[in-house]
């Protein structure tokens, strides 16, 4: 059921309205002549709604950087005669994220849960509270190799303030079916007076669109979604980890592009005076050699094979168990980012054949 219909023109008008008071982030198209296909999309701040390309295939990086930046300052401290004093630092600002596909919406839900597990992560939550999320549905697999349908992440019912369903086909979508996910989303979109009531014909068009979408997704994994955790549990001692990890650089690219990878490292930086400094946090990744290195010099996962297994266990089993969200949304960014062409799909299917 649709809550409303809005024309592309009205929608862009609402986005331009947002731009008067806040930062707007969305898919921006970049030409890359020497890549195949010769174009990529990135989530970037825009200064006009016209810069958004809501018909994008996929963004190279997920929007997680706007909630968990690659590098951030958590607090500033300075030495005092009797110790030190510290002051929290936050760069949270009102932001609208326009144009998030279902896979990334699921991933944002996972992050929300991870950063409220055992108490709120204040820096994350301060950004989250100021974030308006507008999803846009995808009509078909955005690029070969994705397995979002296998992970039940190609359709999203939560994680947005507003969800847009492009009605009609092709690049020149003129109307969107709208579902509201929060009063805030509704208030923003309806304020312009441009929302229409959906007609019976609109509902039929939306249903037909949805059916075409569902039909266009094949299955990539040989293991059903609900069986994946158990299959992985049986695969812990498989030789496939070792055999595959021979090619792994431990470069961590797979972690850093992953929309649900949320591990970070914290360190202090001092000024030359040694009197002032700041505590910073940066993205970390479980594929990096020193990720599980602890004081005293012991490394719990010193071998690439152990790290590769750890990552896939996290994605298919442990993050789900820990947060109740999805550990993997099947966007296949990891597979595309891997310069060793290590494929998570291949690993899952090889393991399934074995056990």
């Amino acid at each position, binding site marked *: 059921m649709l809550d409303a219909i809005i024309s592309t023109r009205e929608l862009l008008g609402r986005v331009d309205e947002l731009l008067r008071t806040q930062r707007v982030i969305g898919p921006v198209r970049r030409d890359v002549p020497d890549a195949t296909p010769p174009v990529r999309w*990135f989530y970037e701040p825009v200064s006009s709604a016209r810069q958004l390309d809501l018909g994008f295939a996929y963004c190279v990086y997920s929007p997680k950087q706007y909630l968990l930046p690659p590098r951030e300052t958590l607090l500033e401290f300075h030495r005092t005669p009797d110790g030190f004093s510290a002051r929290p630092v936050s760069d949270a600002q009102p932001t609208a994220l326009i144009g998030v596909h279902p896979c990334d919406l699921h991933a944002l839900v996972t992050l929300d849960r991870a950063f409220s597990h055992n108490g709120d992560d204040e820096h994350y939550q301060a950004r989250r509270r100021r974030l308006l999320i507008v999803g846009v549905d995808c009509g078909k697999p955005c690029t070969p190799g994705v397995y979002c349908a296998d992970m039940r992440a190609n359709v999203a019912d939560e994680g947005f303030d507003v969800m847009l369903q492009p009605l009609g086909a092709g690049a020149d979508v003129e109307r969107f079916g709208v579902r509201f996910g929060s009063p805030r989303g509704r208030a923003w979109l309806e304020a312009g007076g441009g929302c229409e009531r959906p007609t019976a014909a609109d509902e039929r068009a939306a249903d037909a669109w949805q059916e075409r979408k569902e039909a266009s997704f094949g299955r990539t994994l040989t293991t059903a979604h609900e069986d994946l955790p158990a299959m992985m549990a049986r695969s812990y001692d498989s030789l496939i980890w070792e055999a595959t990890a021979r090619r792994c650089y431990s*470069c961590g690219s797979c972690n850093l592009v992953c929309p649900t990878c949320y591990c970070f490292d914290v360190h202090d930086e001092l000024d*030359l005076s*040694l009197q002032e400094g700041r505590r910073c946090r940066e993205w970390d990744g479980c594929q990096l*050699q*020193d990720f599980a290195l602890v004081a005293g010099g012991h490394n719990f996962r010193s071998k*690439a094979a152990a790290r590769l297994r750890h990552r896939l266990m996290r994605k298919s089993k442990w993050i789900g168990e820990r947060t109740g969200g999805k550990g993997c949304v099947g966007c296949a960014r990891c597979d595309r*980012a891997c310069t*060793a062409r290590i494929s998570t799909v291949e690993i899952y299917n090889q393991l399934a054949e074995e056990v």
Partner: protein
Amino acid sequence: MKPRIAIFSLTSCEGCSLAILELENELLDLLGAVEIVNFREGMTERSWDIDVGFVDGAVSTPEDEREVTRYRACCKTLVAIGACACLGGVNTLKNRQEMESYRTYVYGERARWFPTTDARPISAVVKVDYELPGCPMNNREFLRLVKCLLAGVPFALPNYAVCVECKKAGNLCLYERGQMCLGPVTRAGCNAICPHYGSKCEACRGLLGAEALAAARLNMREIWKVDEERVLADLRLYGAYQGDGSKP
């Protein structure tokens, strides 16, 4: 007492020494925290009572050998800065050529006035306490080391690949544009500056380790099917010196 610092140059372009002078915003604070007592690029006075000596350049002549031995003797802490001092750097390209031919090529008839040796990192000649690799070294990393020394806390180079910083910078990976970037096998710390501006990483900060290199050999052969010689030629630009006398 402020630590007494010296900056020396062996066979190099001295760009790493210059990188220190380029710390324009921090230079005054730096001079407030340390005393520079010997720096050809920046001053005329000289002292040989030194707490921390920074050396750029490779050991490439008998004179370099004598000089670096002297630096070691005069400096309580010795730091190699830049690809030349840490790896041998581009100077090591000559190690794979005939000595007579490159000497004549460079110095012509006066070649015999300029005795030379294979180019080596300074750690091949004397004990080195810290290394700040890169061509040039990253002067932010230099500052970080200075601060660690001042505060008496441990310093370590990033022990992960350039890809990490490349991803944090939000770059499109050059493999997607058909370039065999050396980022996956190269030590980070440069903020992936080359990939960020569209050129592949050339490993000026040195290789990460045996595991990554073994992976590279497999991937170049089996996945990318590129000529191994081509990749080796890239690796040799800064890393032709192997320590064990082998010529990769």
